[in-house]
């Protein structure tokens, strides 16, 4: 399908229900992405291994009619729909099932793209040439321009960059890639302490490992090398940093805009460097958070599209957020410099 505003930087928004798709169309998303979790998957794995990075409950579309309706609505509004099949790893049996699912999604259901991270799944898709775009998930951990070239050689049309890159590294990566490939970056929500692409834990087992009580080992460091107050301060800093990564305790600022990791200040740079799309993270987020997130991103994107300078966009983003205490801290920024 022909997409609206083909040359403009796009907003990619998450949906986990038909109602959310309607909301995204209303508030001006340019692309939708979702997860699907058909009941057969759970029959095979017993709920112990999710079909993608997020929980089947609340973060995924779980019935065929629901998926079909989201795609219909999106296409009616001129928006493509991308489906995340981005668990960090699939077994060979899992990939056989996923290929059937991908064929159904691409054929009968008419989705536009698959978001993939597992290399063996990617290699299998590359052999088949399904009528869908392939996007590399942030879990693909593409950290340099030559890696982008590698993934492009496997048929990847868009690389979604991981959270843990500096702004200058993004610029180098985007401008250094030799093959034709699009780039997407995270705009808002859901930080992560570890590099998702190299994290071999699963959120199935009691939530994200990074938000569990893994700091126990640090306390013992006071036994050698560090003074007690250094350890205590270090732990306090870490707790604070993790609070920011966890969307500031899933909070909102006074006017109802969501707190949490963001890259709004950098949107002008992203436009200038040729980034194709910015992603609102959080398929599992509440309807209210998804709505407010889209409104916030859309407001800044409008500034970007009117041609304001990167510096003006950054000023607007901070003013709109109106949380100088958080923005000044730095922990809420994706892609900050050292």
């Amino acid at each position, binding site marked *: 399908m022909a997409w609206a505003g083909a040359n403009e930087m796009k907003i990619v928004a998450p949906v986990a229900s038909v109602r959310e798709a309607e909301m995204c169309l209303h508030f001006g998303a340019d692309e939708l992405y979702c997860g699907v979790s058909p009941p057969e998957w759970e029959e095979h794995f017993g709920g112990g*291994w999710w079909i993608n990075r997020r929980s089947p409950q609340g973060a995924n579309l779980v019935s065929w009619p629901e998926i079909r309706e989201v795609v219909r609505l999106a296409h009616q509004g001129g928006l493509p729909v991308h489906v995340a099949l981005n668990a960090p790893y699939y077994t060979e049996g899992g990939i056989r099932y996923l290929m059937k699912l991908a064929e159904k999604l691409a054929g009968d259901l008419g989705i536009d793209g698959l978001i993939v991270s*597992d290399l063996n799944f990617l290699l299998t898709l590359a052999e088949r040439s399904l009528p869908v775009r392939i996007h590399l998930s942030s879990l693909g951990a593409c950290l*340099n*321009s030559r890696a982008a070239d590698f993934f492009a050689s496997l048929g990847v049309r868009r690389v979604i960059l991981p959270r843990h*890159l*500096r702004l200058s590294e993004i610029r180098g990566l985007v401008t250094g890639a030799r093959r034709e490939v699009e780039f997407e970056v995270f705009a808002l929500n859901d930080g992560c302490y570890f590099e998702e692409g190299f994290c*071999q*834990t699963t959120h199935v087992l009691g939530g994200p490992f990074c938000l569990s009580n893994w700091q126990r080992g640090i306390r013992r460091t006071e*036994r050698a090398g560090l003074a007690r107050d250094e350890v205590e301060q270090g732990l306090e*800093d870490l707790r604070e940093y993790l609070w920011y990564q966890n969307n500031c305790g899933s909070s909102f600022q006074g006017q109802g805009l969501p707190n949490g990791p963001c890259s709004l200040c950098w949107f002008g740079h992203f436009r200038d460097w040729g980034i194709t799309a910015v992603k609102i993270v959080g398929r599992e987020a509440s309807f209210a958070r998804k709505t407010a997130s889209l409104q916030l991103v859309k407001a800044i994107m409008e500034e970007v599209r009117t041609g304001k300078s990167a510096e003006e966009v950054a000023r607007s983003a901070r003013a709109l957020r109106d949380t100088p205490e958080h923005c000044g801290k730095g922990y809420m920024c994706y892609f900050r410099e050292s």
Partner: protein
Amino acid sequence: MEIALHLRSPGQVESFEGVPAHLTALYEPGTLSGIEKILPLRVRRLYAGDEFCPNRLPSPKELEELLDLAASKKWAVSLLTPPLTDEGLDRCLPLFEQLRSFHHAAEVVVNDWGVLLALQERVPGLTVGIGRLLNKGFKDPRLQDPERFARHSQEAKELLNQCTFDSPLFQERAARLGVRRLERDLLPYGKPRVALFERLGVSVYAPFGYFTTGRVCWAASVHRPSGKKFSLGGPCDRLCERLPLGFDRSESGLATLQNGNSFFYLYPQALLASFLRWARRRRVRLVYQGLAIAPHGVGRGE
């Protein structure tokens, strides 16, 4: 079985004779098929570098010292490399050149597809292995009852026993890319045997498997000023190399530990002993990382 030893500095070779004591501090004496006795005698290869953090790569001088050590011992050399940004890759290229001048067939272990491409393009000729960060599988230490999990279905059982490198599709692609070796951990809930391949060598790291890592590092942040903590690429005083390590006990009973920006599980005794019995007469390389990851030994946790 070929045995390789991962060292961070030539000085660690003095600890080399302490390897048996190091191992018996982690495991009950006499339970590892005598590996603690044969390990120091059979080392044929030195591993340098680091697969998790660019700040732990050797400086050119440090690498030179390690290469001198390897030459004096008549050991072959492998250089571990972490995932790298473009900038990090540029900084790493001189190390590759240095390695090639040491021996034209020296080995580099890559944990990043871009590093593989850059290496082949800019420093051709070096032997290349793919490292364990590119080998995905189920490693979460919080799985409470693996046996119950595996009983659910054949697929669930496969999940605990398979990894990226086991796929013929992957092996074919790796071979086509000029890769000569695949390097992996033992999966914490998997079988002690690993798949061997006709065209690709196989290495297994011991005694720790890794389960998560990232570019953000608590240890690197401790001495940074407020506002600069938990940022990427800033100065690092390598505090991680001086800190003592302690085990925690996960929900599954696995002993886990943190070192710098990475988390590891200690192979259960039965898993490692069984692997060693199986591997002894097979074409497998054992990479002993005890000295590199836990140079001062490991204390028992709370």
